[in-house]
């Protein structure tokens, strides 16, 4: 009885233990490569500089990189204007996505019953939206924001396109935050005579704020990583933007451009990639920390 199957479980076990190996291996290789090549851009060229001075030199180089403008199509100089553009695009994105997302989430979870037909339609379209490839968003953004609305290649268009992309994520996070608030809170509020809207604003949202903020941060994380949606909406220009109507390049587009179109741009591409990944890690860690600290507050309250 046990003997017949004795080889199979072992085979499966082996497979399970083996599976993470190539995954972890390849990814750690990628990370290591990123850090080494990316960090290599900041390493002091002058080998005589050692010890504390080298740390200072590295810090200087990093700051220079983060603030200076790109030179010679990005082979030299830094990514200052690009960071500014990226920041502006993100700001536009969040400014638009947050109210719409929050409003929709409130509507879906507080005002519409589970079976409501409109609610289901909205939910289904959000699901589809979440799966749409980013390049298609780029196409849509180009056709709608750039052409139809006449925004041309601009930060505004890019931000709006990103807002569309980030919306399903935000709504889902917010909804989950709302759902986490126990039904009893709504009952207690109702019994005390709170109107529907009061309940939402004074009782539910404060308690769901965790889910909302986490969703926001994750949305930012997703938006920062986006490239394909921005190529035809926010443009390629690597100068410092002067207004939201100006074209501006995001960090990920910069990386793409440097590696594909600029011979010799690989070094700075790697450095930019390092900056990008580090910021993403910071974003994700802070989201996590926030979530954890909130949980602690709920439990201990002193």
């Amino acid at each position, binding site marked *: 009885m046990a003997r017949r199957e004795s080889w199979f479980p072992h085979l499966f076990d082996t497979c399970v233990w083996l599976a993470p190996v190539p995954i972890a291996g390849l990814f750690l290789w990628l990370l290591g490569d990123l850090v080494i090549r990316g960090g290599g851009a900041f390493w002091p060229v002058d080998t005589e500089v050692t010890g504390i001075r080298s740390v200072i030199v590295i810090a200087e180089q990093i700051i220079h990189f983060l603030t200076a403008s790109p030179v010679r199509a990005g082979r030299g100089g830094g990514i200052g204007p690009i960071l500014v553009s990226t920041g502006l695009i993100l700001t536009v994105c969040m400014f638009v996505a947050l109210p719409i997302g929050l409003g929709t989430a409130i509507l879906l979870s507080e005002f519409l019953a589970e079976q409501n037909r409109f609610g289901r339609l909205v939910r289904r379209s959000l699901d589809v939206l979440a799966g749409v490839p980013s390049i298609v968003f780029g196409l849509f953004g180009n056709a709608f924001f750039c052409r139809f609305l006449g925004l041309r290649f601009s930060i505004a268009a890019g931000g709006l396109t990103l807002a569309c992309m980030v919306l399903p994520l935000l709504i889902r996070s917010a909804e989950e935050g709302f759902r986490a608030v126990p039904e009893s*809170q709504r*009952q*207690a509020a*109702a*019994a*005390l*005579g709170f109107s529907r809207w009061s309940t939402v604003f004074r009782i539910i949202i404060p308690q769901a704020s965790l889910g909302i903020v986490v969703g926001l941060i994750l949305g930012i994380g997703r938006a920062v990583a986006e490239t394909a949606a921005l190529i035809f909406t926010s443009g390629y220009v690597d100068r410092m933007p002067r207004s939201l109507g100006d074209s501006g390049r995001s960090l990920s587009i910069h990386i793409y451009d440097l590696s594909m179109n600029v011979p010799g741009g690989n070094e700075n591409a790697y450095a930019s990639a390092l900056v990008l990944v580090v910021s993403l890690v910071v974003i994700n860690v802070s989201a996590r920390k926030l979530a954890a600290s909130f949980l602690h507050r709920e439990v201990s309250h002193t």
Partner: protein
Amino acid sequence: MITTKNLTIRYGDKVALRDVSLTFEPCTITAILGPSGSGKTSLLASLNRLTDLIPSCRVDGSVRIDDMDVFERNTDVVELRHRVGMIFQRPILFPMTIRRNLELPLREHGYRNQTLLNEKIERTLVEVGLWDEVKDRMERSALTLSGGQQQRLCLARALVLNPEMMLLDEPCSALDPVSTGVVEELLVRLRTKCTLIVVTHNLAQARRISDKSAFLWSEGDGGKLIEHGETRMMFDSPREALTEAYLKGKVG
């Protein structure tokens, strides 16, 4: 005075309460008795229209508070819930400070003057016997209180609006005996200014505190009113055989 007439409550196809007609005299404590599933909570929920929160719920028959028809379309539900307060089985406090838990309902109903608010809050806390225990911790989270204190805070929160009626759904079932005693004592004191309706599983409690009792029983097709009258009379010499059996612990 609250009256229900032919009150029937349905959730979808299921009948929770069937054809119940009751009168609750002002400034009395009425105990609603009966086993699980006999519609006691539904009855309570209909009195302050909390049934509105449940989409599949349908209410037939009428509920009147003095001259106000509770379920009429024009009835101001917010005003209704100002007059009728509710306490749940487990204390449901907002995750905020003690002070804010008490202030929020007041602000919601239009009271803005800070001095007036503080006054009302202090008065109510004294009334429920919590003032000495919490006066130094008003800015701490309400969730740091013990079970009994939390339930009393819930009572205070409902009382701060000065309701004419209080609906209590097994208010002591989650509390230890000492806290239960404190709450029961409080309820008896409140009788002088409020009409109280208490759903309870605890027959001894009903006997201890209530003036009148109503006994609900369900055969599976909705809770019906079996008997209703003075508590003492019902316990000592019940009219219905079913009531007697329940009170003696033989059924339910």
